[in-house]
């Protein structure tokens, strides 16, 4: 099934659920805006000549923090505003260039409640281009266990990402 709830609670999620696909056509603006938004001034993210001649890649490419921002957006589009990301582990196997059509997919691999009562969903997330993996990601996201729960209220020992 595909989970689409805008104000997700843990009881609505089960292992094997898939998230709605997100696709985006990457342009030079995507790459440069993302780099500057994350205050990354390195030339491989805005200077094509540098990327090709110095780095040996085909063009400028998405920087690491902006890839993190795309994953974050994808996940919280699904959870709604109460979703709170605790941990994101991603591996970039190949750069994402202008002209690529990024496609994000995700599958729920674990659903649990920790000792403090915080609800957690672990997902495998993929960023592919033309069906080939570019970045893979494992994300651990807190979602409310009920309508009156809010993971953002958790502090200290009650927040164990």
């Amino acid at each position, binding site marked *: 099934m595909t989970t689409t709830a805008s104000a997700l609670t843990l009881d609505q999620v089960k292992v094997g659920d898939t998230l709605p696909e997100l696709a985006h056509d990457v342009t030079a603006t995507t790459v440069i805006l993302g780099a500057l938004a994350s205050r990354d001034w390195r030339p491989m993210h805005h200077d094509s000549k540098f990327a090709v001649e110095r780095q040996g890649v085909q063009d400028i490419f998405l920087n690491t923090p902006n890839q993190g921002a795309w994953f974050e957006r994808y996940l919280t589009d699904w959870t709604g505003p109460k979703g*709170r990301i605790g941990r994101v582990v*991603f591996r970039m196997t190949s750069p994402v260039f202008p002209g690529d059509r990024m496609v994000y997919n995700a599958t729920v691999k674990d659903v649990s409640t920790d000792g403090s009562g915080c609800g957690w969903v672990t997902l495998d997330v993929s960023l592919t281009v033309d069906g080939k993996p570019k970045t893979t990601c494992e994300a651990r996201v807190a979602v409310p266990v009920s309508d009156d729960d809010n993971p953002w209220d958790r502090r200290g020992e009650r927040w164990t*990402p």
Partner: protein
Amino acid sequence: MTEPTPLDDTLPEDVAALIGQYQYEKTGDFPVEQGYVWTSCASVFNGNPVYWDAKVAEEVTGGPISPPSLLSAYARPHYWAPGAEGEQLSLQVHFDLKKRFGLPEAIMTDNTNVFYEPVRMGDLIRSRQVLKSVSGEKRTKLGIGRFWVIDVEYHNQNGELLGTESYTGYGYRREASA
């Protein structure tokens, strides 16, 4: 990246001595601000109302916060500032290793982010870097070089832990084409 081929496992003593040592502890150049939040959200079309609607932010997060993914941005130096000379670099340990090993190019391959206290408007972000490991020399399709892991910790002005990042970098020199 395809599986790298090991070439030389030796690690210089001066580099080994840096492993586990905190370096470059510093406070960000400016307080966390709403403008960067909106620019970041715009760059990825993030419409989460926590970042755009003050009422929702008050209800959900107790006031405006920054997207967790933007945490490292607040510790990055300005491109230029009065009195600054040369390129201003974040993750200085990474560039130190490139220079130490004579590896002109580098990419990041793995990144782990763990988020703790929310980042709020006006916070001053304090960061520090620690080298966790450096590999021997390896050949990949990009060239010959070394992998290294660098952790960065971020605290706010109250000493609260905001997040940690762990980067795996690969510094390399390209090999001549056949």
